[in-house]
């Protein structure tokens, strides 16, 4: 199988409401940034383009069609789109490169969640006959999951607050984060519940923004002469939709994806995990088998800023940046999709 490398990544600052900016205006600065990192002039210089977005965030069908206006697709491009987080666009592009039909790919994800009420919007992702009519929103579902974990005795509310505290502290070094600060466990536990047992800090903020990435075969990366990180493994698995049909205190699909991506074939020193709720980071850390020595979410993770439809790709981008900066040698990136961690993607990156 062909060796694939991540060669460029950029994401916008996470902000709660970016205001009067449309999809094209959201995406274009990130595209220009990754072109500049590799020395490309436009999307015409890569072999394949794939994006991730969700119509319902902005409330208009075919949101991704407008995204094409950011690409300069004349002459026409080899282009595809997933109605998923752009981490799955990365997955599609990896397969494309493995077929030999492309040596390089541009990926981007974007989301403008501020026009709608995200938890209510995402409630319409549930089974349309039994669950969606209940308007069971994403935060309530996560609260049910957290309650199960707490009642099982495997975590405490202090453990959850510790995740939040570390996220905010790490985010102080991340200029793109939305929430950052030096706040301790005791102070966090003083907050009222938002939806018991979840406090506001336990829930990822909603952010508007976009992220872009360029990947290529290792040969192409060398031809370009840019620093790169090898993508040595990528896998994704889904599990049962119905929250009552699976053990919500574990993430079986993450374990499966991690094993298939070869997470533990060598030592790790960094992990970026897409955990929209504090207790989910604990579930995922356990499912990924990460020990204390591994830096988890040094960027602050999505609890510090959550670019819907791009946060998963951004986790891969964060690990890439740490490897090419020399801060890490081998890392794991994780993305999630669906209610209560239903669908998970795991990628492993290593230094050149």
């Amino acid at each position, binding site marked *: 199988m062909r060796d694939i490398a991540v060669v460029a990544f950029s994401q916008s600052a996470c902000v709660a409401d970016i205001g009067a900016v449309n999809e094209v205006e959201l995406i274009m600065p990130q595209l220009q940034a990754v072109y500049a990192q590799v020395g490309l002039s436009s999307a015409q210089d890569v072999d394949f383009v794939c994006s991730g977005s969700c119509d319902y965030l902005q409330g*208009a069908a075919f949101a991704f*069609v407008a995204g094409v206006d950011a690409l300069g697709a004349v002459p026409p491009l080899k282009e595809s789109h997933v109605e998923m987080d752009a981490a799955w666009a990365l997955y599609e592009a990896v397969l494309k490169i493995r077929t030999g*039909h492309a040596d390089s790919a541009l990926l981007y994800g974007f989301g403008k969640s501020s026009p709608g009420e995200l938890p209510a919007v995402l409630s319409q*992702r549930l089974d349309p006959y039994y669950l969606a009519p209940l308007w069971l929103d994403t935060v309530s579902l996560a609260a049910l999951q957290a309650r199960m974990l707490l009642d099982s005795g495997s975590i405490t509310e202090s453990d959850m607050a510790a995740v939040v505290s570390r996220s905010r502290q790490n985010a102080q070094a991340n200029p793109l984060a939305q929430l950052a600060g030096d706040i301790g466990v005791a102070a966090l536990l003083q907050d009222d519940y938002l939806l018991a047992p979840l406090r506001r800090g336990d829930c990822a903020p909603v952010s508007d923004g976009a992220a872009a990435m360029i990947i290529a075969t290792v040969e192409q990366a060398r031809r370009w002469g840019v620093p790169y990180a090898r993508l040595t493994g990528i896998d994704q698995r889904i599990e049962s939709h119905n929250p009552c049909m699976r053990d919500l205190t574990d993430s079986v699909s993450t374990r499966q994806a991690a094993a298939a991506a070869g997470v533990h074939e060598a030592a790790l020193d960094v992990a970026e995990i897409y955990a929209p709720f504090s207790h989910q980071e604990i579930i995922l850390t356990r499912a990924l088998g990460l020990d204390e020595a591994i830096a988890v979410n040094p960027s602050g993770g999505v609890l510090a800023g959550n670019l819907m439809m791009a946060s998963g790709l951004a986790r891969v981008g964060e690990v890439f940046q740490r490897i090419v900066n020399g801060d890490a040698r081998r890392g794991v990136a994780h993305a999630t999709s669906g209610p209560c961690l239903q669908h998970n993607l795991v990628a492993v990156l290593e230094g050149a």
Partner: protein
Amino acid sequence: MAEWAAVVGIGQTRYKTRRSDVSIAGLLREAVDRALADAGVGFDDIDAVVIGKAPDMFEGVIMPESYLADALGASGKPMLRVHTAGSVGGSTAIVAASHVQSGTFKRVLTVTYEKQSESNAMWALSTPQPFSVHLNAGAGGYFAPIIREYIRRANAPEGVGIRVAVKDRRHGARNPLAHLQLPDITEQEVRDSMMLWDPLRFLEACPSSDGACAMVIAAADSISGNKPPAWIRGVAMRSEPTMYAGRDEVSPQAGRDCATDVYAQAGITDPRRDFDCAEVYVPFSWYEPMWLENLGFASPGEGWKLTLDGATSLDDGGDIPWNCSGGVLSSNPIGASGMIRFAEAARQVRGDAGAHQVENARLALGHAYGGGAQFFSMWVVGADKN
């Protein structure tokens, strides 16, 4: 470099206006169960699931792969949801094929669907925005001016669209799955049907259908089932902006480039001669002559002559039958319509197309387009690897 992949199982639902007897998942399972049975495999033999459909607003279920994972036996497996507008059925097949061609998986299930009756698709497409006027013109209102420009440019006679409308419905009458069953349709009937978007009449436009189409795509060492495989000889996708200065909307460059790419992979030099048949996305009658030219089956300005000569008609014994299944003009579950084209092309080269079989079909084209005729996906399937 790519591994060989082939279609080894195909399953479709009957297409009709309303399938109120099944849920969305039930609709998909009909197609999926038939595809698995056709391939002689079960869910345990499937390595990954690739699903596609047009906008989520057509049913009001957001990112429905979450809900459908259980019904599609996807638990514990990789799953991907493709969305490339109307071309999505074709793109989904191509993405599914890449799972196998990349050497990553041995056997992949892919399925596309639309259940428009569960929501209001007209509403979904017409959320008003202030920078354009709200003219209630629909998709026909968008495509009719482009057709008018084609007619002017090609100096085509008025009745070509009517001829296509009749031909594809007569083809559809050979296909028991087709939504519209109009074996006795006449040109006069089409001519007398209501003018909707001049020059398009009611019977020159596609219906709105519920339905699903599924396929099993397998690697060369994992061929199964009792029927011959349809080898995937080439795949291509192209996208261009909806509008740009100087864009040829009648014969989009993305379509021409996509055809050139897929023909080169499959060794096609003269599509009219080399193919035995084609399944091409024709939702409005006039798009047959337009795509005949765009896809290189006819020279610019000459496509309508092939149609009038009966070259694309199975009933007239044409040399290059198009849309023997009845095409989009006979069945249109939007998200599945592209995959139906791809699957019907595969049925032909497997010799499994029933009453709409083209005799000795060995090589066929599957084609889909979407958006403002700006997204294209195509594949070439053959009875042989080369």
